[in-house]
């Protein structure tokens, strides 16, 4: 009987110890944390996923885990955290090339184009083609983003495949022909003929109303001076001068706003294209 009691106590201790380690019961074992983090990652709950992966001791984190942490931070816009971790991925790792590509994507998203080009230059020719090509595409695409003039058309579109070439070609042509207006010219035109500058930047009705208001108040001033109403004459002169000056000034800002609009719309098109192409980064199979 004593034996039975002892045996039960012994097995219950054993059972408890087992249950602590077993995958069913211990929700906080390394394996279970990893499983839960993977689940969160695939549910696109990226901040929680990153925090969960980071609960695993650094010694036990492999490159895949670190890569997923960095990727999670990158997706939620925590670029500096992401950069630090991507940079730590060893050059011997199978994920090294992908991490360089992700780093380039971060530089692209933050519009750090000079760094993007330097980093790319340093690594030119390294790595296999499956990575070199996307890097080249991202680099070439970045030329459309900032103010640098791209190289000639054929060289420029060369890295892109047939599906991409059509839109890239269009974007290239658009980039070369953005209808940027000169603010100073717009102002000068309005100084010569009230409203002309606004018309030059495409604001026809604004230009017309500027012409009408300057014209009307100049006429009223002239008419009142003629009728000997000097006070009213000067009052209307002042108002006419205000409209005239305001229009010369406004034509300058109208050109600036027009240019901002052109760039905004062009960038919108660029962004929607590169997003649809996932920044030329091949899809990962982490959640398949």
């Amino acid at each position, binding site marked *: 009987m004593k034996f*039975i009691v002892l*045996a039960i106590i012994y097995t219950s201790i054993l059972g408890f110890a087992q249950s602590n380690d077993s995958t069913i019961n211990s929700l906080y074992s390394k394996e279970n944390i990893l499983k839960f983090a993977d689940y969160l990652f695939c549910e696109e709950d990226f901040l929680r996923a990153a925090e969960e992966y980071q609960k695993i001791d650094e010694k036990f984190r492999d490159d895949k885990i670190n890569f997923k942490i960095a990727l999670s931070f990158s997706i939620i816009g925590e670029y500096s955290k992401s950069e630090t971790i991507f940079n730590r991925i060893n050059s011997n790792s199978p994920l090294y090339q992908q991490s360089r590509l992700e780093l380039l994507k971060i530089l692209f998203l933050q519009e750090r184009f000079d760094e993007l080009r330097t980093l790319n230059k340093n690594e030119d020719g390294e790595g296999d083609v499956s990575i070199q090509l996307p890097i080249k595409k991202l680099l070439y695409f970045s030329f459309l983003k900032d103010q640098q003039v791209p190289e000639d058309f054929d060289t420029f579109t060369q890295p892109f495949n047939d599906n991409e070439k059509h839109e890239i070609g269009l974007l290239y042509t658009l980039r070369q022909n953005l209808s940027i207006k000169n603010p100073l010219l717009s102002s000068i035109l309005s100084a010569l003929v009230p409203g002309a500058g606004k018309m030059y930047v495409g604001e026809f009705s604004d230009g017309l109303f500027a012409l009408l208001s300057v014209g009307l108040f100049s006429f009223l001033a002239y008419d009142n001076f003629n009728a000997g109403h000097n006070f009213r004459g000067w009052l209307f002169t002042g108002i006419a001068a205000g409209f005239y000056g305001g229009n010369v000034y406004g034509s300058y800002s109208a050109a600036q706003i027009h240019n901002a609009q052109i760039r905004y719309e062009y960038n919108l098109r660029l962004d929607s294209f590169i997003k649809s192409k996932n920044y030329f980064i091949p899809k990962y199979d982490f959640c398949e």
Partner: protein
Amino acid sequence: MNKKLKAIGSTKLKFVILLLFWLINNSQLSASDYLQKQYEFAAKLFDEEKYYDAITEFKRLQFFDNQKLYGYLSNKMIALSYKHGGKFNDAVKYLSKAELLAPNSDSLFAIKIEIVKINLLRKTTFRARDILEDLKKDTSFAGKENQIIYWKAWTFIFEEQWDKAAELFGILDQNHELKRLCNNTHDMSYSPQIAKILSTIIPGAGQFYTANLLSGLLSLGWVTLWTYLSAQAFLADRVFDGLMMLNFLDFRFYNGNIQNAEKFAVEHNREISDWMLNYLCNNYRGEKP
């Protein structure tokens, strides 16, 4: 000897049976124990108002809860956490998940009411009323009519239709505290329509009605002045001046006076409503969103 052997045999058998029984029992208990502990941990974070972390732990519970023992509870708690974070759309998403896992009709009703409350908080009162109407038509919720009326009255509170809200609370109880509060708020409000009509008839009268005497006098003054000056211009045959003054000054101030009277009424009502809504939010002890 045989007896002894038999006795040893039966002892061993008893031991093996006991051991097996214990092992099966113990391992099952441990699994549900861990889930229970996880639920308590998540609930503790919820009680400590660490709602973001509470959601993480409820999600962990869900992930390891293969049999969905905590499906209803965890989804409800995640929804309530989102509610406390002001993330109402996410709250509704998880309440809808809880709805599918509700163990009985009472739980289902409770979830529906939670969805109504969230709709009140995110000011989609029409959606809240739609849900309440559906509940009213559903025979499985017979006997819960009073609760449905109660929450319908709250939808009118959030629309600041205090008289309608009071009427519904009155159906539940003629002396309902909320009926009294809603009626008081309604009585203290001005009618924007009356303010507009008064100012249309006599400039400034609407402002007088809303107790803005100085603005009323100023409005009356401006309209009188420009009417007088434009009349003078017309009488002196200065038709252009008269028209300009009438159009750009007299009509402008006359119309402005009507808008101004309405604005005072609306602003006053806004203040009264906000005061009452804040009072209900912070001080009312009964069931509330």
